[in-house]
């Protein structure tokens, strides 16, 4: 078990290092001179030289990379060029919107999808299964930002139940803030839930065809009980895998959805940074998001060991 955990941890760290190299290479090496790119065509040579000095671009690449990586470890992400504040402060404000949004969406989609998947598998081929899977098939095809527009139209414009956009901040209490996140979270959760329900169902159906299910039935256990006590835990492995993979899509979705609802999250920040050519902010935000995808997948890998004893003895 410890060997497995240590191996996964090692792989996770290695992946982080390689991913950071890619981010660094794309944003600091490919442009040639990032300072010139940030300041644009009309910048004076003096201004460029000053920015180069501020960003430490005159140091060798390896030193810059190590310093950048080290900054991540100690929480120093540099200063935003356009906002003239530490990137960390900027990011911290935005994470307080994006992270709750992603988490609510993940929880929501899991809470809906897994029971629907189980229910569908148990009633495979019957009317309820057909309806559930038809809905899921449709849900997979709906782009979350379009679904978000429709939700806004129905609940904010038409019924006026929730605000159409904007975010009051957490300072004014949890409820107004949560209220602003409800529609975005639902919009994000729908396609994820549809995929997850389909995977849960097909994983369960596949497991229900295994030999050991017949052994359990031969003991006298009714089909429903066999599904809960024998099939579900075995079907959890593909479901966990998909959950891990989905997190990456969920983050991407969060960034897009924030634009629909004018939420001041990481997504808004990164698009503003692109327009303003603030590479320092882009670099930090991208690295943060990539790191969170890697960490979530590492957690999924580790949770396999809890589900599957075959990994524990390895």
């Amino acid at each position, binding site marked *: 078990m410890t060997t497995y955990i240590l191996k996964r941890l090692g792989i996770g760290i290695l*992946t982080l290092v390689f*991913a950071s190299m890619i981010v660094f290479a794309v*944003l600091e090496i490919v442009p040639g001179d990032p300072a010139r790119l940030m300041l644009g065509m009309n910048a004076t040579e003096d201004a460029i030289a000053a920015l180069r000095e501020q960003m430490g671009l005159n140091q060798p690449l390896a030193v810059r990379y190590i310093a950048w990586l080290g900054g991540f470890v100690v929480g120093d992400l540099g200063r935003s060029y356009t906002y003239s504040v530490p990137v960390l402060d900027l990011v911290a404000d935005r994470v307080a919107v994006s992270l709750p949004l992603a988490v609510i969406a993940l929880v929501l989609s899991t809470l809906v999808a897994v029971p629907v998947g189980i229910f569908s598998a148990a009633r495979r081929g019957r009317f309820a299964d057909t309806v559930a899977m038809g809905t899921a098939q449709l849900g997979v095809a709906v*782009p979350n930002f*379009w679904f978000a527009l429709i939700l806004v*139209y129905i609940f904010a414009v038409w019924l006026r139940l929730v605000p159409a956009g904007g975010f009051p901040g957490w300072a004014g209490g949890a409820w107004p803030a949560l209220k602003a996140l409800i529609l975005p979270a639902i919009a994000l959760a729908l396609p994820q839930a549809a995929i997850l329900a389909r995977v849960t169902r097909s994983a369960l159906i596949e497991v229900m065809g295994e030999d050991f299910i017949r052994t359990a039935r031969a003991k006298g256990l009714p089909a429903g009980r066999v599904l809960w006590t024998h099939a579900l835990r075995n079907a959890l492995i593909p479901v966990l895998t998909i959950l891990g993979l989905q997190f*990456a899509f969920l983050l991407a979705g969060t960034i*897009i959805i924030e634009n629909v609802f004018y939420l001041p999250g990481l997504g808004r920040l990164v698009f503003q940074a692109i327009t303003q050519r603030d590479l320092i902010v882009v670099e930090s935000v991208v690295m943060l998001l990539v790191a969170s995808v890697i960490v979530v997948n590492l957690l999924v890998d580790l949770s396999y060991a809890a589900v599957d004893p075959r990994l524990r003895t390895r």
Partner: protein
Amino acid sequence: MNGPIDEAESLRALFVKALANRSFLTGLIITSIIAAMALVSYVWVPYDVTYLPVTNRMATPSAEHLLGTDHFGRDIFSMIMVGARNSIAVAFIAVAMGISVGVPLGCWAAARRGWVDEALMRFNDVVFAFPALLSAVMITAIFGPGAVNAIIAIGIFNIPVFARVARAGALSIWPREYILAARTAGKSATQITVEHILPNIANLLLVQGTIQFALGILAEAGLSYVGLGTQPPMPSWGRMLFDAQTRMIVAPHLAIFPGLAIVVTVLGLNLLGDGLRDMLDPKLRRQR
């Protein structure tokens, strides 16, 4: 008792089965219509999408303009037709990119095992950490926005997807006895991959291809929506939704039709993929 698994089938049998498979048939019809729309748009559209008759802005659907007009007075149906070819081209090239790089990598890893395999898996881990949107953000920050960014960003993410599917498929074929027989016939790993592995994982790749195609359409729409993909004046479904957003209260039809176009296309491709999987996957068939 293990019965024969009939994996190879005559074309005629496959054709009969295709007609009997509702998912496949529906998916095929929808996909063909969308593809036909995209192709026809090259030679004919109801209204030229670069012509901006400001006098007829945001018209609701009518006999004249089937799906109405947008805020510049452009015909929405024509824009959806042109947008289709844009979406399809981006998704298609991205899938081709994933297949042409990912499949050889996956097959190579399965044939060599050992460190090559390990290195590929780690490479996959790294690329999987970059969803298309993040790659697009980085590329746009350096090179500015454009449809090519979308292709590259989506295509890069497709590489590990196909590498993984090809590797898993190839790993399940390699221990088969006919591979051992081919090795005793002196065939090299490359010959075995071409003659025995690829034909037997082609169905897996085809199914994955339709799934990635559908995901590519969704991703392209998302990227264009946030301004990282196709740029105006080239019509794209995602961009049309962005333009519609601020005008939704006065003209909801601006948001409805491009969205429906995406839904229908993705649905058609997914149905096609499901149908193909049912028809080609011997494992699923045995469960029936």
